[in-house]
């Protein structure tokens, strides 16, 4: 338990520091609410359009797919990194089949995505 005391001290310190900043800014700052201050801040440039433009749902679908496959690739890295040591332990076939099953599941998902036509940009099924 004693080894966690530094963590506790860190927590308390962080809390104190955060609290102190909020407290100080409350006293020292001038909380005057003007129209300019309450405007949305856009890199200092005046706003030209409303921020809430409807975005086509296709972008969302593509972003989602990218994220999914990106994460799956990230999961494959440790598999690749440990492959050699697993082979030397005699678990080569097992690990290879495991990895292939994983990729196979991803492949099924990819085929599904292609066939359902989410990636068809024009006719937008």
């Amino acid at each position, binding site marked *: *338990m004693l080894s966690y005391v530094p963590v506790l001290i860190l927590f308390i310190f962080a809390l104190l520091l955060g609290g102190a900043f909020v407290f100080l800014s409350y006293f020292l700052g001038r909380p005057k609410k003007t129209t300019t201050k309450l405007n949305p801040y856009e890199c200092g440039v005046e706003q030209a359009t409303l921020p809430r433009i409807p975005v086509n749902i296709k972008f969302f679908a593509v972003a989602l797919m990218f994220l999914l496959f990106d994460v799956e690739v990230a999961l494959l890295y440790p598999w690749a990194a440990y492959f050699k040591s697993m082979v030397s332990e005699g678990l080569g076939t097992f690990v290879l089949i495991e990895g292939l099953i994983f990729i196979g*599941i991803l492949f099924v998902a990819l*085929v599904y995505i292609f*066939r*359902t036509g989410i990636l068809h940009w024009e006719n937008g099924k």
Partner: protein
Amino acid sequence: MNILIQSLPLLIMPAVAAFILLIGAMWRRISGESLLIMAVAGLVAALFFGWQGFLAGTASFPADIIFDKIFYLTVIIIAIALALAMLVSYNYLAERKLPWPEYLALLLFAGFGAGLMAAGTDFIVLFIGLETISIAAYVLAGYTRDGSSKEASIKYFLMGAFASAVLLFGIAFFYGATGSVLLSAAPINKLLMVLALALIISGAAFKVAAFPFQWWTPDVYEGSPLPVTAFFATAVKAAAFIMLFRIVAGISGGLGLKFESLLIALSVATMTFGNLAALFQENIKRMLAYSSIAHAGYMLIAFVVLGKDANLAGAALLFYILAYIVMSMGAFGVLIYLSGGEKEFCNMPDVAGLGRRSPWLAAVFGLFLLSLAGFPPTAGFVAKFYLFKSAMAHGYVLLVIAAVINSLISVYYYMRPVVAMYFGEFQQERSLPKIRYSVAGVLIFCAIFVIILGLAPATILAILSH
């Protein structure tokens, strides 16, 4: 090779799911019926291999997975529940023209998750199983395009993700306390272990809808499409309870801590809340949601007994789950039978006068409600009797008294639809739908099962007590 055969009941479900997804995407014109038949055939195969595995006995698998009797029984129970949920939704989906392949695949993936939750001996496997079933459940809750369904899906997702995070946090503390994620690991640090246990029990209590964490249940059950609600109330609930069983059974082995009183409090609070809240519900779907909370309270009694006699508790819990699956699937099935092509008719006035309009349907609905209330000679009575008896045998008299009083309270709200059916006048002229064969088949199966479990429970009990 042997391992492969023993894990077949688990592997067959995602394989069939992927196959259905692909064939549905490749061949758009394939009919819902053929996909449904494929899915049910896959479940029957899982059931068959599960039974074979049950006869063959326990086998262990490298990655902290154990294929023991509880696993095989769970797979059998889940396969039955999923097959019923699929069959019961045939008309519902067909009339609303909802896509079939995704629906069936999600149900089968959920079945895989449930099997994993029953087979895991460490927290990582359990958590993966839990997430598999939860994600499928979130999507299914929003399967129709009306507002309430979407609302249910979002609510379920946000609350469920939060509960998963709490559970994961508890697992992290468990790892900190024991240095291992194995359920049977002995704690090095008692204080951290208490924290871990509190977080894990909280997360799991959310999934089974136990008292302080049950608020999502009525909204999600009411908003989801009816067949999906039936699936939540049966398969998801069963899987969550089996996971809790694994966790509590595993942890109490390596632990000097007593958390029996915590479980007693959880159980009594859950059943009391569920029953009291169900008393004045006008929507039958919502009433059944509260009733499922109350039944979760009864099932938690088995966890109290678990510390004393694991075999007895396991058998009582599995029997209760099986009985609850058939009777609540039946009750939801009647509502599905009554629902129209566009709208669901779940309010009390919607069943008024059903006793004259369609006597068979009313009789079957009455049977399921009586069973849920725990009248003999139905499955609900035997399940409750067996559970209370096992608690009684280990001296939890006050707990049993609380449960019996709760059962008495529950009779009031279970009888309200019955009274409405037989003594009420129907308010609007709505012609009954034409015969829905798949739903009718499920209803007949459930009704027969409810009566068989009520009259001759000995065989099933003998199987479950292994």
